[in-house]
């Protein structure tokens, strides 16, 4: 049974979950279309390609993408995890472990482009793995949120300051 203090937030949280799902879905489409899920495609995106006449990415161009994402992704991850901690009875250690994986993947996704372009192109597979990890763990968080809101976790949510 849902905690009555949480019940009134069910609507806003459900709307948030729907929109985050759209954000994650469109992120996957954009990743596939702009970079691709092959190592060579990711390297070509950042380093340029003679075959497609694509120039290498400039520092300014990479920062133009990285800076807003440095706000948006951590903010979205933080708010989602905050809500999960708030409405579910997830245990502390698994919660911290998955939260760490999500944050680590987010950091690699954001910084990966700069590293591939200016430091080590062989990091391309890591960027792909981190993106898949970020998407996967975000799906876990969203699933936990939905389960908690539907009261299917079997116990009242933990509400503590």
């Amino acid at each position, binding site marked *: 049974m849902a905690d*009555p*203090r*949480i*019940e*009134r*937030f069910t*609507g*806003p*949280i459900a*709307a*948030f979950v*729907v*929109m*985050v799902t*759209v*954000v994650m879905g*469109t*992120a996957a*489409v*954009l990743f596939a*279309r*702009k970079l691709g899920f092959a190592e060579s495609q990711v390297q070509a995106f950042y380093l340029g390609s003679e075959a497609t006449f694509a120039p290498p990415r400039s520092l300014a161009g990479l920062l133009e993408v990285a800076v807003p994402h440095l706000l*948006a992704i951590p*903010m*979205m991850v933080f*708010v989602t995890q*905050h809500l999960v901690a*708030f409405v579910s009875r997830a245990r502390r250690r698994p919660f911290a472990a998955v939260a760490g994986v999500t944050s680590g993947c987010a950091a690699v996704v954001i910084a990966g482009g700069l590293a591939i372009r200016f430091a080590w192109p062989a990091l391309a597979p890591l960027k792909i793995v981190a993106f898949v990890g970020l998407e996967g763990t975000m799906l876990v968080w969203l699933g936990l949120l939905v389960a908690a809101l539907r009261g299917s976790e079997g116990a009242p949510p933990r*509400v503590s*300051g």
Partner: protein
Amino acid sequence: MRFLVQPVPEALERARPPVRAFLAFTALLLLAWVASRAAHGALTPAGLELILEPAPGERLGPVALWEEVHQGAFLYGFLLLALGSLLAVCPVSRRVRNALLALATAAALLDLGAPLLPVALPGFPGWAALRIGAFVVAVGALLAMTSLAWATFGRETRGSDG
């Protein structure tokens, strides 16, 4: 969120100035969003089709379309969560706040999804007008939520039901 979940009058009253400042910025954001779309020609069907209509052979539509849906969903998600949560502790009837939230969410989804219609069903008529209408309704509902929260947040204690 503690002050939202345990809405004691003193806490809500203390939170009113920053909440009102946030709501003022939210209203500015919504108005700026409308201005931005107008400046890009995205508030007329012809202008919108020019920007987002898939070119022949472009199976998934232009990348700009996906970027816009991506950014729009982020913005809508945070606005719906923040405004919906604030309204939940305002002395507003449950019916009104649920209706506004449902209207804003449905219109937002339509705003985000309408440009995908000609991608899924090439030649789909009227998607641009549908998107403009949905955007106007979504922004209108969000502005109504903002105004309502501005006027009522911290005014009186609510029951546990809301």
